[in-house]
């Protein structure tokens, strides 16, 4: 009985970690190229909405995912344009984008759906992997998830490989470390940063879909609930390494899952806000722990210009 609870908890952890994981993987690539994209919270919301709206109008859930990725990428393009070409302050730009996107989505929500009840869709169902999912304990945890979760985990490995084992990844990291040196090596700093930020945005949009189209199964303008912000700190916690970010996301998924379960078991005894607060406090604690140790791309959040 206890084992069941624990297995259930871990399974939920992996499932709940998916949006965190996707968003932070996208942000990892971003930050490795030297751009701090704080707009993740807003991009996730945009992606969640685009995915939801797309899926309800076309009736096809995969088209919904496509919309999520596409609009996330567009938002990434905007961020790239502002921070790479116009060299604006990345912190402020990110925050402004969140505010802007939140407002935009709320506006579009009213316009497109009005006050009518939101349609229900054919959600992305869980896919069980044969044989592997029968393995006791690990089986249900790892192999009874929905496709986006599988995608996210595989993505973590793929990104790790690209970043650390290929020339392209080397270029990305060089651009994030010392763009001036990378420039003298003949690396196109601007192109690489643009690609990374757009990619980060696209995956961020997908992360939003992971919420609205699979795990939470509806849409509301407050549904991202700070996950985007946490995703940013997960990148730091994961030391800008996709595999470590994977670990950190699972940790947070676990924390979120735990918090929800605690609420249902203990909810009557403590004000529910106390539980909701846990992720935020955790994020702060993480940040503190992580900021103490130095590291990270040396050129993070510093715009590059040749004639500096």
């Amino acid at each position, binding site marked *: 009985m206890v084992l069941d609870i624990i297995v259930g908890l871990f399974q939920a952890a992996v499932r709940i970690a998916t949006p965190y994981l996707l968003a932070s993987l996208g942000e990892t690539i971003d930050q490795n190229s030297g751009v701090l994209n704080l707009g993740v919270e807003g991009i996730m919301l945009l992606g969640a909405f685009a995915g939801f709206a797309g899926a309800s109008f076309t009736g096809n859930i995969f088209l919904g995912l496509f919309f999520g990725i596409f609009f996330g990428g567009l938002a990434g393009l905007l961020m790239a344009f502002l921070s790479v070409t116009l060299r604006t302050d990345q912190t402020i730009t990110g925050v402004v984008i969140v505010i802007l996107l939140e407002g935009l989505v709320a506006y579009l929500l009213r316009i497109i759906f009005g006050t009518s009840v939101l349609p229900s869709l054919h959600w992305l169902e869980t896919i069980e992997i044969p044989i592997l999912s029968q393995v006791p304990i690990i089986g249900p945890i790892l192999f009874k998830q929905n496709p986006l979760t599988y995608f996210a985990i595989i993505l973590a490995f793929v990104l790790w490989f690209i970043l650390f084992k*290929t020339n392209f990844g080397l*270029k990305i990291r060089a651009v994030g*470390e*010392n763009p001036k*040196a990378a*420039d003298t090596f*003949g690396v196109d700093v601007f192109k690489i940063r643009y690609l990374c930020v757009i990619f980060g945005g696209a995956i961020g949009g997908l992360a939003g879909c992971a919420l609205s189209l699979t795990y939470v199964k509806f849409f509301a303008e407050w549904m991202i609930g700070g996950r985007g912000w946490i995703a940013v700190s997960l990148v730091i916690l994961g030391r800008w390494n996709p595999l470590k970010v994977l670990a950190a996301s699972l940790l947070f998924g676990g924390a979120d899952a735990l918090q929800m379960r605690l609420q249902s078991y203990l909810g009557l005894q403590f004000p529910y806000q106390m539980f909701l607060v846990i992720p935020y406090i955790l994020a702060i604690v993480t940040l503190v722990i992580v900021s103490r140790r*130095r590291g990270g791309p*040396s050129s993070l959040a510093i715009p590059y210009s040749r004639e500096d």
Partner: protein
Amino acid sequence: MILKTQFSALLKSISTIIGRKTERIRLLENLRIGEPALVMEGIVKRFSGVIANDYIDFEVRKGEIHALLGENGAGKSTLMNILYGLYRADEGKILLGGEEVNINSPKDALELGIGMVHQHFMLVNKFTVKENLALGSMSPKGLLIENAKITKRVEELTKKYGLKLDLDCEIWQLSVGEQQRVEITKALYQGADLLVLDEPTSVLTPQEVKELFMSLRRMVAEGLTIIFITHKLNEIMAISNRVTVLRKGKHIATLDTSRTSRKELAKLVLGEEFTLGLEKPSSSKSNNEILLVKNLWALDDLGIDALKSISFSLKKGEILGVVGVSGNGQKELAEVITGLRRAKNGEILLKGNNITGKTPEEISKKGVGYIPEDRMTTGLLMDFTVAENEILKAPLLDKLFLNRREISKYAEDAILEFDIRTPSKDTPTKHLSGGNLQKLILSRELRLKPQVLIAAQPTRGLDVRATQYIWNKLLTERLKGVGILLISEDLDEIFCLSDRIMIFFDGYIVGEGTPKSFSIEEIGKMMTGTKRLDCGKNGKFVAEKSS
């Protein structure tokens, strides 16, 4: 006809260079020694009202070592940055091997066979040597990092030019001389025919300079062409075939080195007769100790011992020169004494009072002045005005409410006394030239009447006139009885000014005495060989946080 040569050169380059898939235009390959390899005609470059390059004509012949000489701000670096594609010229054209070329980015320059070794190394600190070379290997189609190919190619280059490298070291673990070797290898690896070196010897010991020159001669023997930017006259005489002098953005003259002299070059650079040297009056020092350092130990930013068992005394009215290549503990010594860094062990006594571990504010108030080596990053608040910088350490700041009039007067007095050239006291400091920035720092420190002054690289990057000014000011303070700790890499400076010297190596004092008791060779030997860590994954890189 030229196209044909280009194509055959292209095929040749593809077959000789392993793994290279990009097209390279080897315009210089088929030239004979002595023919013009590079011609820059009528180059003009302006920066917000300043003309950095004023219709400059510059010609370099194949197979020569051509020195580009001029004071700071003369336009040498700008010209070479244009050549390398980091800047775009406003007017003028560039011809390589007789063909006009368009260089819009370093990538273009690399494809044309132009390699540059910058004064401030353009290497990615956290990456290994191998990764840095891989970055420059220009095979974008390749997916995986080609470890084997890189190793092989580097071995070839080592055999050819004698540049030894440890591929798995991360850049920050290497000594400055070794880093420079990586820079040079990087340029050669990318197949440079024309190599530009920007002030390469400013960070090397005398031995390393010798080794560098040997490598350069070998390169030239193999058909490479070299441009050597410098302001050191003796090096020009030693290594170059021809020398071009720039002054204030204009091309002044191009001469055969064998047919000129240091004196003539100095005259061309400065535009007038100028004697470098000064009268050092006999010291008025007493035997009164003003600063005593006992068994001082301290860690550097990486957590490694930077100062080991340092003990010395500084007397009133004496200039104690600290000699050594950067990175042997000098910076940490200055920081510990001024309170910017904690000591692991040991004591510092100022006139008998223990100042170890006190805050920078307290130490400053007790009479220790500091001229830091990075004047722009540590010594000044560049976005503040001249006046605001002047009062940074002044007692004026102790009062809650700032008195505008007092501050104005304080600043104006300083500007007058130290002849600081600035449009007004309310000009942002970033608009001032290097020499005036240094005068500002000097004025700020000296007006507080310190008893001990620590001057780190006080004339680095300054022109001759500013250097003379600073030297004279230091000597004046010396006569007043101030004890000066002079940290410098410039051996001329140390020898001219110091009463006594200490030689630093690896955090220890390896030599001490009057300047006369050492020969340059002896000092060079003692300075040599900065610390080298065990390379590999044991070392942890700790970056400077920028926020």
